[in-house]
């Protein structure tokens, strides 16, 4: 393996993709020409903290380096009819040297969950080392910088929107934040957090031993989760405090090519295009923005570029750049289709996270409802109980994750027509009694079914509440697990098209409300197909009675043919196509 000569053009260094502009990588004298010549009218500007300070105390916004003058940048953009949006990292940022920390603060390397120093390899082969945000000096300095930046914005009456961004990557179908860190700094800060918790309990006259506070591994992980959330919130609140006018919210951005895995795959020269294609689709189901800016130029082309154009630019970037409320075009109103929510209390608890995989649900959903599922951290679960929202959605809970809040939320969903599936072997006995009490009080008959395992089903109007014992499912072979889920899901009457695709082809469904001329349908769905492999592939769609073919969009290296009761799509390498359906319920 050799370091390739850095083939990134100068323009690509300044505009690395996804509408981003690295203002520090070019002379301010060239800003006007560069921005005016950029294709899109909307530009994302990430703030480079280290560029504006050497010592972490004094900040340069237009005094020494003209390239730090963000007000001038905003003015130029306005003069050439471009709209700017600023991104401010609340975590280490892989697109900045050292993760974005000023050199004087880059002291303690960030350590990944595997115990490896966190690094990001650039397209040139250079290793960019990431440093911890848990160092107390870092937060103090960050706060000073954000205060100074906010003051600059305010004094100069800068009106551009500003978003806080949490940077991360996708690994094992999870968003891993660069904020996640197991360094010495994190450990010391966590110890202080525990001491404060202990003190708080003692102040409330609760005698507690530190060992009791950490009586089990899962307790420690829960406290870790709470600690990380609290520290992250400090960074977010800092931005909210000093940008009361400009602040729009927080977004998560997953940078393709920056996972810990990628380090090893790059060392071994492993082809990863398939993986990046899947990561993009995963991000869309999790409301995370995927970013290609750190991929080498050759990987950004082809299927990845098509996916960004089809799936990312038209939805998330429009949302971020503020157009979504006014643009009623066909493309922008499609949203990823989600039929299934897998709810977890603590995403950092490994054994719980893989529970649904062990009982075969993940495999079933992947094979039959590709990417139509979301993994929800129940801490952040929105209390959405709208009936329309609950239609065609099934919520899964592991009993061990159900506490009082989740119990009430489940019942509210059930009473509003929601469909919930609960694995009850680890359900707390008191919570189980409360469920039983609810059914008796409301005269709901629980239908007992002894299939592969013990299943009981309660119905209330449109609402369904299914309890099943997962311990018996775990020991089954894969085929029986899939059959079990097929039977369970079939009872919910979800409408979908059965797709048989060869391995390697990926697809994603999106949905939107019907337009004026489509009112005979309940919804309109679009399925996007991508073949990121170097092989020919075939996909078959079995016609479902609820679906009417509306149109076929952009057959690129692909051909759709209709046969009785099915459509067959043949893909050449790097082929793609999307198909619209009207859906009846």
């Amino acid at each position, binding site marked *: 393996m*050799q370091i390739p000569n850095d083939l990134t053009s100068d323009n690509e260094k300044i505009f690395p993709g996804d509408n981003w502009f690295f203002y520090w990588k070019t002379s301010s004298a060239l800003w006007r020409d560069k921005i005016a010549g950029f294709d899109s009218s909307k530009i994302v500007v990430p703030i480079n903290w280290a560029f504006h300070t050497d010592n972490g105390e004094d900040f340069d916004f237009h005094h020494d380096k003209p390239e730090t003058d963000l007000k001038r940048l905003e003015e130029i953009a306005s003069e050439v009819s471009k709209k700017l949006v600023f991104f401010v990292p609340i975590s280490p940022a892989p697109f900045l040297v050292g993760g974005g920390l000023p050199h004087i603060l880059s002291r303690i390397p960030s350590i990944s969950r595997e115990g490896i120093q966190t690094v990001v390899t650039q397209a040139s082969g250079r*290793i960019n080392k990431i440093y911890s945000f848990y160092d107390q000096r870092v937060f103090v300095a960050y706060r000073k910088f954000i205060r100074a930046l906010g003051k600059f914005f305010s004094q100069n009456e800068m009106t551009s929107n500003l978003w806080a961004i949490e940077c991360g990557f996708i690994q094992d179908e999870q968003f891993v934040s660069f904020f996640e860190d197991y360094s010495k700094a994190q450990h010391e800060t966590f110890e202080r957090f525990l001491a404060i918790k202990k003190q708080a309990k003692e102040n409330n006259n609760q005698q507690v031993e530190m060992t009791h506070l950490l009586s089990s591994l899962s307790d420690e992980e829960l406290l870790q989760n709470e600690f990380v959330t609290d520290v992250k919130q400090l960074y977010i609140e800092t931005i909210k405090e000093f940008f009361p006018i400009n602040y729009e919210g927080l977004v998560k951005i997953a940078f393709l090519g920056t996972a810990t895995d990628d380090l*090893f795959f*790059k060392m*071994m020269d*492993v082809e990863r295009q398939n993986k990046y294609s899947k990561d993009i689709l995963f991000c869309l189901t999790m409301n995370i923005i995927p970013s290609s800016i750190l991929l080498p130029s050759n990987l950004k082309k082809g299927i990845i570029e098509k996916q960004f154009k089809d799936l990312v630019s038209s939805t998330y970037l429009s949302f971020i750049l503020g157009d979504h409320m006014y643009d009623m075009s066909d493309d922008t109103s499609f949203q990823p289709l989600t039929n299934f929510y897998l709810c977890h209390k603590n995403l950092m608890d490994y054994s719980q*996270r893989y529970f649904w995989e062990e009982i075969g649900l993940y495999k079933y959903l992947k094979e039959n409802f590709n990417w139509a599922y979301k993994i929800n951290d129940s801490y952040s679960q929105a209390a959405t109980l709208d009936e329309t929202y609950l239609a065609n959605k099934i919520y899964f809970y592991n009993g061990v994750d159900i506490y009082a809040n989740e119990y009430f939320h489940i019942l509210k969903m059930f009473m509003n027509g929601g469909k919930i599936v609960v694995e009850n072997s680890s359900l707390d006995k008191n919570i189980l009694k409360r469920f039983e009490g609810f059914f008796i009080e409301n005269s709901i008959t629980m239908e007992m079914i002894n299939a592969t395992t013990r299943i009981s089903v309660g119905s209330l109007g449109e609402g369904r509440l299914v309890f099943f014992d997962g311990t018996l499912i775990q020991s089954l072979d894969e085929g029986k697990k899939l059959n079990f889920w097929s039977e369970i899901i079939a009872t919910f009457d979800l409408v979908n098209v059965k797709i048989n695709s060869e391995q390697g082809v990926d697809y994603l469904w999106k949905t939107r409300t019907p337009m004026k001329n489509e009112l005979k349908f309940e919804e309109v769905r679009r399925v996007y197909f991508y073949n990121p492999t170097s092989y020919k592939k075939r996909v078959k769609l079995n016609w479902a009675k609820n679906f009417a073919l509306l149109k076929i969009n952009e057959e690129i290296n692909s051909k759709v043919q209709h046969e009785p009761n099915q459509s067959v799509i043949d893909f050449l390498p790097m082929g793609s196509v999307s198909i619209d359906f009207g859906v009846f319920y």
Partner: protein
Amino acid sequence: MFEKNHLLCVYNYLKINMVYPEHERVGFSANAHYYYMLYLIDSSGPVEREIVSSHYYDQYKIPLNCGRRYIGPFKDLEELQGFAVKISEKINALKVFVLSAQNLSQYLDESTTLPDLVNKIITTGDSFENDETKDSKNSFFSKIFK
């Protein structure tokens, strides 16, 4: 640099809440530290899970059941290294490099580029040659050139 027929193994000594009843039967304890492989990868990507699971079962007579990412637990480093060598034999890798997360972090700290890093691993990291593949390769060439 890493060649096409090299295998890379990175491990760590961890306490993970993934010890099940069948593990306890063969001497593993819950809430204890063990060795886990974090990465086992060659130029085709991660070694297939079926191959790893099968060899793990052969070694410990229990299923590999620690989530989709890690391979383990292993009782000591020698058992882990031995496992890595067996996998290299199975997939016909010429050599397997076995290094700890700590060593890798040290190399990362000392390196500025990816080739630097790979060079450090190859020249200073622990490696085990697959004698079977080496011998068969040598005998193949010896037949041609005798």
